[in-house]
């Protein structure tokens, strides 16, 4: 029983063929079964995520968090779901009914679809397609679409503003994300997730840490989490695109958002932290999912840590940060990695990793130097323009004397 999932599949296959079903039908049934099980598994984790997120944010804010329902408040998410289900379902005036209703479904489905290419173990993966990395980007754009549909169909100015902001944000941050995704693809010579994981005898975070950081930042932007949560910015546009949603429709957005964070963590773990790799995984493949989820939750914790520690940035700062800093840096990194990869053909693994790591650190160091110089100039500029506080009864001659 080294590989329970495939053994169960084989067992079911023999049962079905004993029933006299045709080969094609059995394959279809098993595929549907696999999809249902994977989706259900992920959604159950999603319910637990509500509790985890609330408990951890409470710790960050020096509170206890949910602690009334069940031990440590662990049944709280179930209570939340019941509450959401029995709430009144409100349809705003002038809303586009069909689009309004379908948007939350697409939002959650887009996140669930991503799990199709996450490799859980050497033999357990939804679909090992050879364009998996591009698939991730493609599904991400469907998520954007859901947000636009929700924002537009709500017939609400705040919702529309939120949708607008999301489009500006997502289209912008997709560029560095795609470039950062290309780096592991370049190193593994493949866009298939299993090949990328198999190629990581040294985790890619130790080979190209900068790419991992760029992917991490742009993924947080793609998630729309603080410090990039301008699409729902509570203090500016109330709740953004989901302002008009109530009950379980809001619940779907909420669940989708939480699950998206874990999904992104799983993808980052797969691409940079070795996915299911870990000790003894070759003998016992079932350890693969365990390692994957440990790594994913570590990344998820990092995302939460950032979310609850940083304030929101302004939209112009955010787009400026992307176009003036992240995109050029990612492009430069990609070029450097490509050239080094070509130069280092035939060298040993250790030399390869060390040179790559060194190059990354040099780029980081140079970036920090440039940023410091820029910050010094900027500080000087702002320092000169600083307005002088004038009290109404101050004489103008005194003001001249001060400066």
């Amino acid at each position, binding site marked *: 029983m080294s590989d329970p999932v495939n053994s169960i599949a084989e067992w079911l296959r023999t049962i079905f063929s004993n029933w006299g079903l045709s080969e094609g039908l059995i394959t279809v049934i098993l595929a549907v079964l696999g999809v249902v099980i994977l989706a259900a598994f992920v959604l159950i984790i999603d319910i637990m995520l509500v509790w985890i997120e609330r408990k951890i944010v409470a710790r960050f804010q020096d509170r206890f968090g949910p602690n009334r329902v069940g031990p440590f408040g662990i049944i709280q998410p179930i209570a939340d779901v019941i509450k959401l289900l029995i709430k009144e379902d409100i349809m705003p005036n002038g809303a586009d009914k069909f689009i309004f209703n379908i948007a939350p479904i697409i939002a959650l489905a887009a996140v669930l679809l991503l799990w199709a290419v996450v490799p859980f173990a050497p033999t357990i993966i939804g679909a090992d397609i050879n*364009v998996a990395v591009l698939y991730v980007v493609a*599904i991400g754009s469907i998520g954007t*679409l859901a947000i636009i549909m929700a924002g537009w169909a709500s017939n609400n100015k705040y919702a529309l503003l939120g949708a*607008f902001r999301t*489009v500006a944000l997502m289209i912008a941050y997709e560029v560095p994300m795609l470039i950062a995704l290309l780096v592991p693809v370049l190193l593994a010579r493949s866009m298939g997730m299993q090949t990328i994981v198999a190629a990581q005898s040294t985790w890619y975070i130790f080979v190209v840490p900068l790419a991992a950081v760029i992917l991490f930042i742009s993924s947080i932007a793609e998630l729309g989490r603080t410090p990039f949560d301008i699409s729902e910015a509570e203090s500016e546009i109330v709740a953004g695109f989901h302002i008009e949603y109530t009950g379980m429709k809001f619940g779907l957005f909420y669940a989708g958002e939480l699950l998206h964070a874990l999904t992104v963590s799983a993808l980052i773990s797969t691409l940079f932290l070795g996915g299911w790799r870990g000790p003894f995984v070759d003998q016992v493949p079932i350890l693969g999912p365990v390692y994957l989820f440990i790594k994913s939750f570590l990344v998820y914790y990092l995302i939460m840590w950032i979310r609850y520690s940083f304030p929101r940035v302004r939209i112009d700062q955010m787009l400026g940060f992307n176009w003036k800093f992240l995109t050029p840096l990612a492009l430069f990194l990609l070029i450097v990695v490509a050239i080094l990869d070509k130069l280092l053909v035939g060298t040993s693994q250790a030399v390869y990793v060390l040179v790559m790591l060194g190059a990354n650190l040099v780029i980081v160091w140079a970036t920090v130097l440039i940023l410091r110089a820029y910050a010094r100039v900027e500080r000087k500029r702002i320092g000169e323009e600083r307005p002088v506080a004038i009290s109404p009864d101050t004489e103008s001659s005194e003001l001249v004397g001060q400066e």
Partner: protein
Amino acid sequence: MTVLQVIFLITAVVTLGGAVMVVTARNLIHAALWLILTLFGVAVLYGLLNATFFTVIQVVIYIGAIAILMIFAIMLTRRVKQEAGSSVNKGWWLAGLMSLVLFTALVWMFSTWSGFQTTLPVMPANVDTIKVLGTALVSPNGYVIPFEIASVLLMAALIGAVVVAWERKS
């Protein structure tokens, strides 16, 4: 009817229905959403043709970028007056007639061609199409010049779009 045919027919009907809605829907946002459905249908057809790369690229470029940009542009250029008037111009019946004539002519022309009923050949085994495509696009014996020209075109479009849409403060 094989499974492939059934999938093709369902997809084709949905896609063409979506396409008709794109050109007839009065509400432009609805037209854009129908366009997205149509593009999805086309993506599925690429999948049927064993071109998975294009399935994914279709979603990334057409749905993720082009359709969303269009929705963005529609929202930026909305006018209440526009929704009231007719969404088609005076000669729309002529346009419809021309399209029908063209369709008939195309199908008639195809049907006289000997290769019209070509059946599906087996995919050559052990060939990674993506790898072959990637190599072909950048090899001097392949398509490196069209590829480079396309990248120059994209660069020009990028700069051109910024210049054209730039709001000059006067």
